[in-house]
């Protein structure tokens, strides 16, 4: 006997599922969805959970993460209930539920909180740089002495550890909430991890199953790889990346940086453009957190490019300022978005596929045992 919570739907509406009440459960969305598969039908089933207020059912579903927001369901919905927007809202809802700190909930509920936090983090970072920075040499561009790499490296590592801890805790909570499998051997866990999380993280291949997502997929891949490249440069090769040496254009570090930046600019630019134009179904509504994420990302890339440009133009002061602003923006991008907001999907999506697989295996085993 399932108990119902009629208030659940209101919470989802706050997160962007404005029209979902209009649903009359015809099933066209599910039958249209290129990603719905046997045993994991969505969106209609998820919509029913939400409308009836079956909170537990909703939180234990991995299906919302299997949706890549191609918008076909919304386009074919005879009642105009916007199931795609609803699934997006459910992902926001789930993000707030996986997060144990409660920050996520606050960010999603209030633009003000998000804005203040961002400004706060920005200010703290800029202030810290102000406090720790080395000699400002104005005769030439000398980043190493302005902000020695080992200090940045330290910051990098602190943030990395904290973030990973937070994100992994959230992923673990997601595991607790969604995976019912208790009867599969540990080796299977490892094997499936390698089979699902790794390739999906690397290729995002499921996105291509959507009929009209090819361009989105390209843009998405550009962002992923652009970001990953820079991330590796910054965290692993910071010594080489943040340096006073003027690399020739063909140097892998410089060229790689350029390509990655270009990829990010194009990818994020496409996303912003789409959201402004609102031309496709999937871009009709953007939650404030989407905007924060994209704006921050874009600003980070631009300031990064500026540092480089100023460095090669030999403008020391401009370079230092750009660098400070850049770091000031990077901090909120990493600290807020990765564990608590939009960017957390980089972990949730591949893990959702993994967890779904685990559940399936477990179910198959149960059937085997009983049969």
């Amino acid at each position, binding site marked *: *006997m399932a108990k119902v919570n*009629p208030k659940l739907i209101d919470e989802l509406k706050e997160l962007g599922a404005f029209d979902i009440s*209009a649903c009359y459960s015809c099933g066209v969305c599910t039958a249209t969805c290129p990603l719905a598969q046997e045993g994991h039908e969505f969106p209609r089933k998820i919509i*029913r959970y939400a*409308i*009836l207020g079956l909170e537990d059912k909703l939180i234990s579903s991995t299906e919302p993460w299997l949706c890549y927001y191609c918008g076909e369901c919304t386009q074919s919905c005879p*009642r105009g209930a916007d199931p795609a927007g609803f699934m997006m809202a459910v992902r926001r809802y789930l993000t707030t539920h996986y997060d144990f700190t409660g920050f996520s909930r606050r960010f999603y509920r209030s633009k003000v909180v998000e804005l203040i936090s961002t400004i706060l983090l920005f200010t703290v970072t800029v202030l810290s740089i102000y406090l720790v920075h080395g000699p400002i040499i104005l005769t030439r561009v000398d980043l190493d002495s302005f902000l020695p790499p080992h200090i940045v490296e330290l910051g990098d590592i602190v943030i990395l550890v904290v973030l990973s801890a937070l994100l992994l805790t959230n992923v673990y909570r997601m595991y607790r909430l969604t995976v019912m499998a208790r009867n599969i051997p540990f080796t299977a866990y490892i094997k499936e991890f390698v089979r699902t999380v790794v390739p999906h993280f690397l290729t995002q291949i499921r996105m291509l199953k959507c009929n009209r997502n090819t361009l989105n997929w390209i843009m998405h891949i550009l962002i992923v790889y652009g970001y990953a490249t820079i991330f590796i440069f910054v965290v692993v090769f910071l010594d080489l990346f943040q340096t006073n040496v003027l690399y020739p254009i063909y140097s892998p570090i410089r060229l790689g940086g350029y390509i990655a930046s270009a990829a990010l600019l194009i990818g994020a630019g496409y996303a912003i453009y789409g959201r402004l134009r609102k031309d496709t179904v999937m871009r009709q509504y953007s939650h404030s957190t989407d905007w924060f994420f994209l704006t921050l990302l874009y600003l980070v890339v631009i300031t990064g490019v500026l540092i480089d440009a100023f460095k090669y133009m030999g403008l020391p002061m401009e370079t230092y300022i750009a660098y400070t602003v850049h770091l000031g923006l990077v901090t909120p991008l990493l600290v807020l978005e990765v564990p608590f907001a939009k960017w957390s999907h980089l972990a949730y999506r591949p893990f959702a596929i993994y967890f779904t697989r685990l559940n399936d295996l477990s179910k198959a085993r149960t059937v085997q045992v009983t049969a």
Partner: protein
Amino acid sequence: MEGGNKIRIGVYVCHCGGNISDVVNVKKVVEEVRKEKDVVVARDFMFMCSEAGQKLIEDDIRSGKVNAVVVASCSPRLHEATFRAAITRAGGNPYMYYHVDIREECSWVHEDNKEEATNKAVRQIKAAIAYLRHAEPLSKIRVNCERSVLVIGGGIAGLRAALDLAESGLTVYLVERAPFLGGNAARIGRVKVFPYEKTAIDIVRELIERLRKMGNVAIYTNAEVENVSGYVGNFDVTIRVNPRYFRGKPNEYEIEELKKICPRKTRDEFSYGVSERTAIMLPPFNGAYPEIPAIDMALCDKCGLCTKVCNKVDLSQESQIIHLKVGAIVVATGFKPYKPEKGEYGYGLPGVVTLQELVGIINRYGDVVINGKRPRSIAFIYCVGSRQRREEGRKANEYCSRYCCIAALDVAVTIKEFLKGVTIYHVVRDVRSYGVNELLFEEASRQGQIIIKYDIDEGEPQVTYINGKPIVKVKDVLTEHMELELPVDLVVLVTGMEPSDGTADIAEKLKISRGTDGFLQEVHPNLGP
């Protein structure tokens, strides 16, 4: 064509587009009857009743080939008149005609035995031929017809019919059993009638007002049809008008006193039993007709208290018998809502009401208050007393009552407008918001009202109680047949329609046939609905 002429019979057999010819061998029938004496023409045709088919007959009559006609087709209820008209047009005598029913009587009932069906058709046609051989042409007589109509029932249908008839110049007698006009529609009161902006009571009031302005309408309330005799065009009707026990309209002061004085109390049928009334029945709404109160003698114990506060009360009045002559009768006896049995979906327990009772509550209090509190959640259970399945020992209404889905949605949308926070569940089988009413359904959805569908094969929804609060248990088809528990403050049973008490009575007096559902039977659902 005159009697002196020898009889020349034409036989026309209809295929009825397969309805007949799929079973009866029409060609064979034609061959058989052609051999009969006096038969000069025997033909078959896909649709005798069509223009082309009728033309066949007309041509044969015009050319003088035929002076008596047998048509073998469907039931004479459908097309006897059609062919008589065709014969008249061609200059024949419409009564030198015999209509043989070989569809209902042969092809439809003997589908399994084609040969016998064919033989039966042949025999029937031969009999008709024999009849015509001895028939004499009749001629029409003209009978004067009363230009007046009796309308039975003062609900919305009766009011509208009376108004239309009156406006087309006929004299109208409107008879209503209850002391006041308006019927069920008036009781719906202030709920808006989708898709219009008007409320039900507005519509009733408007009709009553217009009707009262007509000079050629006589309205009898508190009256019953006693007896009907006569024939088409000339009915003699006896009406018993029961006394109101009032000699005119009391003034406001007297009305206030009358409200208080009577000691006898009963449930008020106007609010579907939600509130009480006394034996003195006052006009139930503004603009009601007549404006004069009436005393319910079934309840009154003649204590005489009322005569002391109002000198217009006259307990000695007696019923009047009125004889009318009318040309036609319109039966608009309406419906009564299905009354659930005690315990049916928890009916009779606190927090379980019918849709009509809920409407009564809304009209009485302008709000929904159950046990002194506004409900935070309401469940509507549909198809109560409709679409029932036939079971041993239980009366079942198998029909769909057509209006309940829409009425319930309409009420729910109205409630949601003034009770913003309320959660509303609709426990339904199919949402039958046909036509433009689909927009009402959509409106309800968009307001966040929740549709739950149950499958009757998995059992009906159950109403149980925990801590004195009703809980609806239902398996939701839309959510993997999951069993849901809905804790609610109010359960509303969306009850269907049944023929009103007057319907059976009138049907008896007028000798009108009724369908298996108890409602009146029309001539033909499609031809004369």
